[in-house]
C-alpha cells in the first residue's frame, strides 16, 4: 500500500517533469496570450501610452461600422473560390493517379512541388509571371496570337483591380491542387473496399455510375474533412501573397482579414482594434470547427 502510493507520487512527479518545458511555453505563448487578447479587444492601446485603456464594446461597434472590414471579409471569401476548384482538381488527379499508370510516383512528386515550395520565393516568381509586359502569361498569350496571326494582349493581372483576385485564385489553385488534398484523396480512394466495385461491375455499372454510387459516398468523409480544413485555412489565408505581390492593393482588392489584423497591429499600432478583429476571426473558425467535430463524432460511430 505504502509502496503503491510512493509509486504514484513518483509517476506524477515524472509526468510533470516531462510536461514542464512544453507546459511553460504553452502557458506563456498560448493560454495567457489568449486571455490577454480577449482583454485587449475591449480596450484601446497604441503601445506608447502607459497602458491599455478599457473602452468596453467600442472596438466591436467600430468594427461593425468599418466599411474596410466588410470589404476585406468579402475579399477573403472571394479568394476562397480557389477551394472548390482545387478540390475538384485534386480528386480528378487522385483518381487518375490511382489507375496505376506508369510513372505515378514521378507525377505525384511533380504535382507536389508547388505545395512544397510555397512562400515568399514562389510569390515573387508569380509576381513576375503576371507581369503585364514581360511576364510568362502575357508573352505566351502574345506569342499564341502571333501563331494565329492575331494581336492578342493579356490582362494586367494583379495590377488591375478587376483581375487581382482572379490572378490570386489561379495561383492558389496551381499551388494546392496537387498537394495535401490530392494525397488525402489518394489514400481515401485506396481505402474503398474492392468488393463494392466488384459488386457494381457485376451489376453492369459503367464508370460514371461506379464513381457516383460507390466512390463518392465512400470518400465523403475525406471530402468533408478537406473542405472544413480548407475553410479554416482560407479564413486565415492571404497574408504572404498580398505582402509580397501587391501590398494588399490595388485599392485594397487583395487585402484579407489576416492582412488587416497585421496592418492595424503592426503598422498602425492599434492593438485593441486588431485584437477585436482577431476574435471575430476566431468565432468564425470556432463555428466551422464545431461543425467538423459534430460531423466526425457522428461518423466514427457508424464506421
Amino acid at each position, binding site marked *: 500500500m505504502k509502496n503503491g502510493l510512493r509509486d504514484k507520487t513518483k509517476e506524477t512527479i515524472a509526468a510533470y517533469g516531462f510536461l514542464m518545458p512544453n507546459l511553460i511555453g504553452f502557458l506563456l505563448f498560448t493560454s495567457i496570450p489568449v486571455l490577454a487578447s480577449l482583454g485587449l479587444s475591449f480596450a484601446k492601446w497604441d503601445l506608447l501610452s502607459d497602458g491599455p485603456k478599457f473602452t468596453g464594446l467600442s472596438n466591436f461597434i467600430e468594427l461593425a461600422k468599418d466599411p474596410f472590414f466588410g470589404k476585406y471579409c468579402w475579399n477573403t471569401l472571394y479568394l476562397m473560390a480557389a477551394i472548390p476548384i482545387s478540390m475538384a482538381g485534386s480528386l480528378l488527379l487522385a483518381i487518375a493517379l490511382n489507375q496505376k*499508370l506508369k510513372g505515378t510516383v514521378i507525377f505525384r512528386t511533380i504535382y507536389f512541388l508547388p505545395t*512544397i515550395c510555397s*512562400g515568399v520565393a514562389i510569390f515573387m516568381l508569380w509576381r513576375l509571371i503576371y507581369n503585364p509586359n514581360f511576364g510568362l502569361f502575357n508573352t505566351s498569350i502574345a506569342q499564341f496570337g502571333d501563331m494565329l496571326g492575331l494581336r492578342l494582349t493579356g490582362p494586367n493581372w494583379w495590377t488591375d483591380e478587376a483581375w487581382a483576385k482572379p490572378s490570386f485564385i489561379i495561383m492558389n489553385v496551381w499551388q494546392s491542387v496537387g498537394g495535401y488534398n490530392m494525397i*488525402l484523396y489518394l489514400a481515401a480512394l485506396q481505402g474503398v473496399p474492392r468488393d463494392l466495385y466488384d459488386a457494381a461491375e457485376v451489376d*453492369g455499372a459503367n464508370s460514371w455510375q461506379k464513381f457516383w454510387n460507390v466512390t463518392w459516398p465512400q470518400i465523403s468523409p475525406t471530402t468533408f474533412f478537406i473542405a472544413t480544413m480548407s475553410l479554416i485555412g482560407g479564413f486565415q489565408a492571404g497574408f504572404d501573397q498580398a505582402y509580397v505581390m501587391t501590398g494588399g492593393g490595388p485599392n485594397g482588392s487583395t487585402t484579407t482579414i489576416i492582412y488587416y489584423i497585421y496592418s492595424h497591429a503592426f503598422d498602425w499600432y492599434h492593438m485593441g482594434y486588431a485584437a477585436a478583429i482577431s476574435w471575430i476571426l476566431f468565432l468564425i473558425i470556432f463555428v466551422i470547427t464545431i461543425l467538423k467535430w459534430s460531423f*466526425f463524432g457522428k461518423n466514427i460511430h457508424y464506421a
Partner: protein
Amino acid sequence: MGNHIDSLIREEMKQEIFASVSRSKRKKVIKVVTELKEKSPLKHKLQRAVLFLALLAGAISMAAPFLWMVSTSLADPGQIFSENRAWWQEWLPTSFVWKNYVKVWSVVPFAKFYLNSIFVSLCITFGQVATSAMAAYAFARLNFPGRDRLFFGYLATMMIPGAVTMIPVFILLRHFGWIDTYKALILPGIFSAYGTFMLRQFFLTLPKELEDAAKIDGCSYLRIFWHIILPLSKPALATLTTFTFMGAWMNLMWPLIAVNSIEKYTLPVGLAYFQGVHNTDWTLLMAASMMMILPILIVFIFNQRFFVEGIKLAGIKG
C-alpha cells in the same frame, strides 16, 4: 450484338455469384469479367494513353513556372526584355549567367539571411520536436492528476488562430526587451500543441508490453522514454521534424513582427526586402528565390515518404 452477349454473360455470372458463397469463386468470376472486358484491348489501351497524356499535360503546367524561374535566373539581365525571342527561349536557358547567383550574395547580406534562417529553423525544429515528444509521452503513458483536463486544454487551443495570440506575444516579448533578438524569433515557435497532439496519438498506438517489461526490470521513465518510445517512433518524429522545419523556413509573418534590423532578417523577410530595394533586377530576384527553395526541395526529395505518411496521419485525426 456485343452488348447482348455481355448482358447475357453478366446475368449468368450473377446467378453464379448468388449460388456461390465462396469468395475465391467470386474472385474467379470477376477475373472472367475483366478478361472479357479486355477483349477490346484497343479501347482500353487508348483510354490509358489519353489518361497518361492528360497527366503529363498537368505535370508540365505544374513544372512550367519552375522551369521559367530557372531560365530567368540564368538569363542575361538585358536579354529578358528583348522582344524578338523565340517562344522556346522563354523556357530554356540560352545563356548561363552564373554571375547572377554570385551577385545576390554581395547586393544584399544574403549570407546573413541564410545563416539566420538555418539557425532559427534548426532551433525551432529541435525545440519543438523535443518538448512535444516529452509532453506527448506524459499524456500518452503516465497517469497523473489533472491529465485529461490539461490535455483538453491543449486540444481546445489548437483551433485558436495564430492571429489571436500573436499580438499579446509581441507585447510580452517587447516587455521582456526581446524584440529584435533571436529569442523573439525562436521561442514562440518552439511550443506547439499540434506537435504534442500528433505525437501523443502516435505513442498511443505503440505496444505496451515492452514498457511493462522494462518497468519490472526497474527502468526509470526517462530510460523508457529514451530507449523504447523514441526509437519506436522514428517515422512520426521524422514527419514532425520535416513539417516543423519547412514551416519555420517559410514563415514570413512572425519574423516581420519579431525583428526589425536587417542583420536579424531570415530568408523570407530578407527576400521581401530585397524585392523592395531591387524591384527590377528580375534575374537576381529569381536567382535568390531559387537559392531559397533549394534546401526545401532537397528535404522533400529525400523525405517524400514522411510527407505522404504525415499527411495521412493528419487526415486520420479528423
